């Protein structure tokens, strides 16, 4: 039936082909960015811009959905007669672009609704509003691009616009530092992608994606894979290139954080898939090994960092790192299966990864929007200053809880389905012919399981210390529920999380075009399965029914509530809470976020973070305070980034002398350099 509806909608939009709609959408977004400069200072102006963004993105979702479900409807790429001197700009929606365009624009549309309400809180809207449509347009350009030049141009605009948003509140030193680190990492990443495309284009310089696919010539796959991992991985947040992410994502205004964490990292994943699966030709089996190792390390370290974090938005940013690891585990598995000829298993792993991309964009945006609502209500990002917000902000708390359940991969929400599919792919690994991945994949699976469990623990901590208990600071006690636009957007995201978890078969089916394009196979149609269950390989092997789980939970919870109401005592009594024999009413005595993390810190932290605790007790008889001091180290930063920073500083000190030479010495330097280069040219041949 879905196919019929799509057919009808295609026949309606046929005169205006989908690619044209998408290209016009991008154009309108760019115009909005220009318009925003004029109108953003007025509250109505910024509302109008955000609202228009939401509308345009909704239209883009529609176009992309049609292109995804009915491939071939808009095959002719839109050729825009502007571009760099060597080529023109080609925009089109193939199934992969379309899938990501749906994900990106759906989330962006909802986040824009949130911004209609939330954006009016901005102190300096002129530093946020004009860059927002430009950022969204740039992400769409990256997705629509069918040649390397427009891909890179879109990528760079995306980086620069998001950088401008990160430093929009530049009064705090930490935001400025985040901006610098982000700019350096983004520049390096774009440079490696440029090199990757340069290698793929080959000596003939065919920079359209079609030309790259057809170039049968020598392709140094290892170099392309390494460059794509560095270039796209630095944007997505693969360890150890994640360093900018927990700095930059929280620094931006909350709705932009939601986009950067929930959506922009997905554009980076798209770039990786496009280069490695689509443009590089058939993979070798060993390509999967670096991807799997990096992904597993990313997943486990991301969640460990998150557990040590007490800043709510930084905690969420570290969880983005973890989820990127999960996505890349799926991609690595897909590479391994594709190289060994197991096309269906590759399709399963790939669909698991893209499904998780979809899910993560939904629940991570939801969580960041929730954190933004808390931030604007309390002015706090530190969880040790929150608490008890469920009484002050019940709807936000409810939506945030939905997001926490989804990201913790608990059924019946969507996070469970994609991680379950990833595990199904991991369980196919004994088929692999090479022994290295056969040994590696189970270890990766164990890491994935461990990180999923730790993620659940982390979100118990996040939700508990933010919303439960008693307020730890006066600002938390005085918090007010956020506005209706924001609440509507969060509830919509929560509903989508639940919907995708209860009815995952539709999502899997709609991704069939992507797996056909990239690995040449698709899973059996899930909508034919009885009772809306999913069985990706074989019902006898494994099946999951989200609807059944959801109904069971609803029935069990309903019955329990009924029984409690029916049979429990109706008399309401108020009594002092059990105080563990410690009747201090101060909220500081509550279980805090760091005390929650302490057992896990004891297990992992002493190695990973070199965590050391020092307890200073008062002397016997002294009634003074005891003191607990905790030292944590960011080992990765100290091991990888500090030496680079030291080297750059030392080199800058050494070269400082060159600023104070005499004119004749400068001339001599120029002369010597010229002669040296000429000698090199002369002797080279």
């Amino acid at each position, binding site marked *: 039936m879905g196919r019929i509806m799509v057919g009808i909608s295609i026949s309606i939009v046929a005169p205006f082909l989908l690619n044209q709609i998408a290209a016009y959408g991008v154009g309108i977004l760019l115009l909005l960015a220009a318009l925003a400069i004029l109108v953003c200072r007025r509250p109505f102006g910024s509302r109008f811009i955000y609202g228009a963004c939401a509308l345009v993105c909704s239209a883009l979702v529609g176009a992309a959905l049609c292109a995804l479900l009915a491939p071939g409807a808009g095959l002719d790429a839109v050729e825009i007669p502007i571009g760099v001197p060597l080529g023109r700009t080609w925009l089109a929606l193939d199934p992969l672009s379309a899938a990501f365009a749906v994900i990106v624009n759906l989330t962006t549309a909802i986040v824009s609704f949130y911004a209609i309400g939330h954006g009016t809180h901005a102190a300096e809207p002129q530093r946020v509003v004009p860059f927002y449509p430009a950022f969204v347009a740039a992400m769409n350009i990256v997705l629509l691009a069918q040649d390397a030049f427009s891909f890179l141009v879109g990528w760079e605009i995306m980086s620069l616009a998001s950088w401008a948003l990160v430093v929009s509140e530049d009064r705090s030193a930490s935001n400025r530092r985040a901006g610098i680190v982000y700019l350096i990492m983004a520049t390096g990443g774009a440079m490696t992608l440029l090199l990757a495309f340069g290698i793929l284009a080959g000596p003939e310089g065919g920079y359209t994606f079609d030309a790259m696919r057809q170039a049968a010539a020598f392709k140094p796959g290892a170099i392309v894979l390494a460059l794509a991992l560095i270039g796209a991985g630095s944007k997505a947040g693969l360890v150890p290139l994640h360093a900018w992410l927990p700095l930059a994502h929280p620094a931006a205004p909350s709705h932009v954080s939601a986009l950067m964490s929930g959506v922009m990292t997905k554009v980076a994943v798209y770039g990786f898939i496009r280069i490695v699966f689509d443009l590089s030709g058939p993979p070798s089996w060993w390509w999967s090994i670096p991807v799997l190792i990096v992904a597993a390390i990313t997943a486990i370290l991301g969640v460990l960092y998150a557990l040590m974090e007490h800043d709510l938005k930084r905690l969420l940013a570290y969880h983005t790192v973890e989820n990127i690891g999960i996505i890349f585990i799926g991609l690595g598995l897909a590479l391994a299966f594709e190289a060994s000829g197991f096309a269906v298993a590759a399709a399963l792993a790939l669909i698991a990864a893209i499904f998780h991309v979809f899910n993560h964009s939904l629940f991570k945006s939801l969580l960041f929007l929730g954190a933004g609502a808390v931030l604007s209500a309390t002015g706090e990002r530190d969880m040790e200053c929150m608490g008890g917000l469920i009484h002050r902000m019940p709807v936000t708390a409810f939506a945030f809880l939905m997001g926490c359940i989804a990201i913790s991969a608990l059924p019946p929400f969507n996070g469970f389905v994609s991680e379950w599919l990833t595990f199904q792919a991991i369980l196919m690994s004994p088929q692999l012919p090479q022994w290295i991945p056969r040994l590696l994949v189970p270890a990766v699976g164990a890491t994935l399981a461990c990180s999923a469990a730790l993620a659940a623990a982390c979100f118990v901590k996040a939700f508990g210390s933010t919303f439960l208990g008693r307020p730890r600071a006066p600002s938390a006690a005085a918090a007010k529920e956020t506005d209706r636009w924001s609440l509507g957007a969060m509830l919509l995201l929560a509903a989508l999380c639940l919907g995708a978890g209860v009815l995952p078969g539709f999502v899997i089916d709609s991704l069939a075009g992507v797996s056909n394009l990239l690995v040449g196979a698709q899973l059996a149609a899930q909508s034919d399965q009885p009772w809306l269950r999913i069985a990706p390989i074989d019902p006898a092997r494994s099946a999951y029914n989200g609807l059944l789980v959801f109904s069971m939970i609803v029935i069990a919870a309903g019955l329990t509530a009924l029984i409690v109401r029916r049979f429990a005592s109706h008399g309401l009594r108020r009594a002092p809470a059990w105080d563990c024999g410690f009747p201090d009413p101060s909220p500081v005595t509550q279980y805090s976020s760091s005390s929650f993390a302490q057992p896990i810190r004891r297990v992992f932290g002493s190695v990973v973070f070199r965590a050391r605790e020092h307890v200073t007790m008062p002397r016997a008889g002294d009634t003074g305070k005891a003191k607990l001091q905790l030292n944590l180290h960011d080992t990765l930063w100290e091991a990888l980034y500090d030496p680079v920073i030291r080297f750059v500083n030392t080199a800058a000190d050494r070269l400082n002398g060159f600023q*104070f030479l*005499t*004119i*004749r010495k400068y*001339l*001599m330097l*120029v*002369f010597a350099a*010229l*002669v040296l280069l*000429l*000698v090199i*040219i*002369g002797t080279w*041949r």
Partner: protein
Amino acid sequence: MTPFETDMAHLLAGSMVLVSFLLLYQDRMFALLNIFALHAWVLAFSVGWQAYLQHAPHLFITALIALVFKGVFIPVALHRIVVRLGIHRTIDTVVSAGPTMLFGMALVALSIVVMLPVTEAAGAFVREDLAFALSIVLLGLLMMVTRRNAVSQVIGFMSLENGLVLAATGARGMPLVVEISVAFSVLIAFIVIGIFLFRIRERFDSVDVRALDMSRGESA
């Protein structure tokens, strides 16, 4: 192109290299200015010959610019400046003439070694012309590096620019606009440098550029 025409072009371009060596060797001020004028005259003839060979009338304008400005106007003006500054004494060189000349010969060899293989696709005539031009540029740069006197540095710069004009006229298709603008930029550079010379002298009673370095609190 007859062998005579090619030989003539080579003779003129080669003479420029020779005159560049004379510039490098010459350490008296007035003689230096006269040789620079000679450099410009040879350039003018060389460009004029190219204009005749390539049937490119606009190159005659270039030749005329070289003749009038660099062959007459700038040497005369520098001559007057030198007289007014009262520095018609010998020039002190950082490196003595012998090693400088040896190094200059090495530079000529280098430019031939570099240019001939690189420009294999071009005609034999253009290749050697470019090698000569590069030699002149390098010799001009060498002169700027080895002299301390501001006036002789200016001369080194101007002879370097002559080499560029020679290269530009040898490579066909150089538009006139570019040549005229290069000529004017040299003229402006000359004016600016001339003004600076007087300012330097006013301040330091010398046109030795070491005085500039000392004014920044450094030793040369």
